[in-house]
């Protein structure tokens, strides 16, 4: 691993130059949560520092502090050794700190040039925006990041990768000294990721200090010079990449080794429940075929944007597929909307819990009974006793932590919200449950609980489909794994003998003419 890292020119990686930007003793609390507890972070010119940590470790909070969105409760921010503060996003930008975000936060309806220069556009003598110069300078910036995009193009007409390039061009345009890249490769294809690495190299060569936030260890080891690890809002380690192994980082990150996280399962798989034949969508996925049996956990692996969620949502009837058939217990099932899917025993626990799963302002019990109202009501009239009984049954089963069943869902922690969302689907007594990234954004404790529960469900004979982008989770939980790439099935594997390398290769399309 280490020997494969390319040697770099210049002395930057060897001698500790003073950091451009350093955070010391930063603490930040939100109502009910201590997001950061005295953490430190140092960013050096011409070096890439990887910030590693599980979801909820405090990474996004530190980014918000660095960019002036949040103010720390305690601690110091040192810019070139001098204490400073970023009371506003403008102040952070003026100090040369810029962030390129997970969801490229740009403006779809403005031109590329304006996306690059919004807030600091070149002006004429009269103080008016100088579009001619703006477009010219934008063209220059775009060339510097190796992009061939016309500056007049409306951003909406670009793909995600190109939008990223625009975001980087923006970072260059504000003469950034510190560039924060928050999971920049999450939505990119293999080829685009390579281009992004080149870009990082270029920024490094220009002497920028780069904070690189990523979940993917392979890319951290490939491009980072230093690491900083957060766990539960605290700093647990920092140093040179050369001095650590992947295992070290994982241990720091989770505080235990990978193996311990997953429950031991008996794999007793029964009859076929679901068969999907030739499911195709005009633009999102094509020719999906697979079967699912009772008591089985079928993992769906792939890079973000491989079409897994799109396919699952079509299967659940949210979007209609162009062609293809679903058989449940051998009988053809027509699913045009989620109501029909639920009636047929297929349920989908969405990835985007906030938008698609939880109704935060409604009480817990009403969330749980929502898809089962037909059962808990009589002649269209609600029966609260039945609702509470149903909700209590599943809340207890999932070991929900809440003050009361009529508490608003939004008051619970992310993990407990996820339990309620899962409870809501189990209460419909499904035969097939599709879990889309079931442990995304929840704490480690809840994660283990969800995994254990998933195993329990399978043991009871439920057929489970688990979409996950985390290889340990896929390998730890699945009986069988299907890998999707660019909307198609790229491979199907039994768990036994399956290695992470096989999955990564299949997902990235390595070993074929790409």
């Amino acid at each position: 691993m280490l020997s494969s890292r390319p040697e770099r020119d210049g002395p930057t990686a060897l001698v500790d130059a003073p950091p451009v930007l350093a955070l010391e003793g930063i603490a930040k609390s939100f109502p009910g949560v201590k997001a950061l507890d005295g953490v430190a972070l140092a960013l050096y010119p011409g070096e890439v520092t990887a910030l590693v940590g599980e979801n909820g470790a405090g990474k996004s909070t530190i980014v918000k502090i660095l960019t002036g969105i949040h103010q720390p409760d305690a601690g110091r921010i040192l810019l070139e050794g001098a204490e400073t503060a970023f009371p506003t996003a403008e102040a952070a930008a003026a100090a040369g700190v810029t962030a390129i975000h997970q969801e490229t936060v740009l403006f779809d309806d403005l031109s590329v040039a304006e996306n690059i220069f919004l807030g600091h556009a070149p002006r004429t003598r009269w103080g008016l925006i100088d579009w001619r110069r703006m477009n010219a300078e934008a063209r220059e910036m775009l060339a510097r990041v190796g992009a061939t995009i016309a500056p007049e193009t409306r951003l909406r007409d670009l793909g995600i990768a190109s939008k990223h390039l625009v975001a980087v061009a923006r970072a260059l345009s504000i003469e950034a000294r510190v560039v924060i890249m928050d999971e920049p490769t999450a939505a990119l294809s293999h080829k685009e990721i390579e281009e992004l690495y080149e870009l990082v190299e270029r920024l490094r060569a220009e002497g920028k200090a780069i904070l690189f936030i990523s979940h993917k260890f392979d890319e951290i080891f490939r491009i980072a010079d230093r690491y900083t690890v957060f766990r539960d809002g605290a700093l647990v380690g920092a140093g040179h990449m050369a001095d650590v192994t992947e295992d070290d980082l994982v241990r720091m990150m989770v505080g235990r080794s990978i193996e311990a996280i997953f429950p031991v399962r008996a794999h007793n798989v029964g009859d076929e429940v679901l068969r999907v034949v030739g499911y195709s969508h005009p633009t999102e996925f094509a020719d999906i075929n697979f079967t699912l049996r009772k008591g089985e956990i079928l993992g769906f692996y792939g890079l973000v944007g491989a079409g897994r969620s799109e396919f699952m949502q079509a299967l659940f009837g949210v979007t209609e597929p162009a062609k293809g058939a679903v058989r449940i217990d051998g009988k053809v099932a027509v699913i045009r909307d989620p109501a029909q899917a639920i009636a047929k025993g297929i349920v989908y626990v969405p990835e985007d819990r906030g938008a698609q799963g939880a109704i935060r302002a409604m009480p817990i019990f009403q969330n749980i009974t929502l898809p089962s109202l037909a059962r808990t009501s009589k002649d269209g009239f609600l029966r609260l006793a039945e609702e509470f009984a149903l909700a209590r049954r599943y809340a207890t089963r999932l070991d929900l932590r809440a003050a009361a069943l009529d508490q608003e869902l939004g008051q619970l922690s992310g993990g407990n919200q996820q339990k309620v969302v899962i409870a809501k689907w189990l209460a419909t007594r499904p035969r097939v449950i599709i879990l889309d990234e079931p442990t995304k954004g929840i704490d480690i404790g809840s994660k283990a609980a969800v995994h254990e529960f998933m195993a329990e469900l399978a043991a009871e004979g439920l057929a489970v489909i688990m979409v996950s982008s985390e290889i340990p989770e896929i390998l730890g939980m699945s009986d069988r794994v299907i890998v999707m790439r660019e909307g198609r099935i790229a491979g199907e594997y039994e768990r036994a003998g399956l290695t992470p390398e096989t999955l990564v290769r299949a997902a990235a399309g390595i070993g074929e003419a790409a």
Partner: protein
Amino acid sequence: MSRETPESRLESRPDSRRAIPDRLSTPGARLLRSWEALLLAVAVAIFVANCFASPYFLDPWNLSDATFNFTEKAMIAFPMALLIIAGEIDLSVAAIIALASTIMGMAAEAGFGTPALVLVGLGVGLVCGAVNGTLVTRFGLPSIVVTIGTMSLFRGIAYIILGDQAYTSYPPGFDYFGQGYVFWVISFEFVLFAALAVLFGVLLRRTSFGRMVYAVGNNPMAARFSGLRVGRIRFLLFLMTGLLSGVAAICLTSRLGSTRPSIALGWELEIVTMVVLGGVSILGGAGTIAGVVIAAFVLGMVTFGFGLLNVPGIVMSIFIGLLLIAVIALPRLAARLAPRRA
């Protein structure tokens, strides 16, 4: 504001894991803290103030007359409350009244009897509601703009038909809806208002349809993922609002005994004010019919009381506008000040 937060309760009871109670507080305690309770206090205060302000206020016939200030608007406010809770709005309701009234006038001119006129009124309301519902749910257009458009369209059709004319002849018996009394001072309109209040209250609070309305308003996407037919629910709500606008048109036409295209002009804003004053969140997802009923009484009494004091209607509208802003601003101001004190 020092009441226990749910979190602090949770922490103070570490072994609550296996025994989650159904409710945090009793329904009674909840009611006391509710918007409706506050509004009711306001209503009582206005009632008392009116009693002192004018000796004519407590006269039963005067009070009965006063109900006409709000009964027709409240009939529309009920389905509008559901619609707003579901995250939509219908600004075309007053225009539907104008169109329904105009077409009823046409039918009356053509010699149709009272039952036929009622059917015409309801039918026009339903058709207009269906037009709104189709545009919003089938074509996915924002309801606020669509209904601003249909508001011009519906009233525009009334103007095309009537111009600056008026229909004034209605068949015998038609006057009952707006001028008839069921018992002593209890008017037909008031009875209808009360019945609709109960009907919509039950629909919203006691049926699964009502629950779905809340779910759709809070998070339409999650509602859809939960198997709710969001489009159908919204369509039904537009249909209901149209239908009740038709009912209001029948009552208003009957009460006035004439139709001009400018009938009920500006009512949509008064109806939305009534709904919002009643505690329905303009952003959707929350509100009760009880609140709307009390708000109807508050607005009716304010109008009536000011009327007795010879305050012109337009000045009253200042008060109503201030009230609308105050009821929304005050809780936000309080919420903003509260954490600072803590």
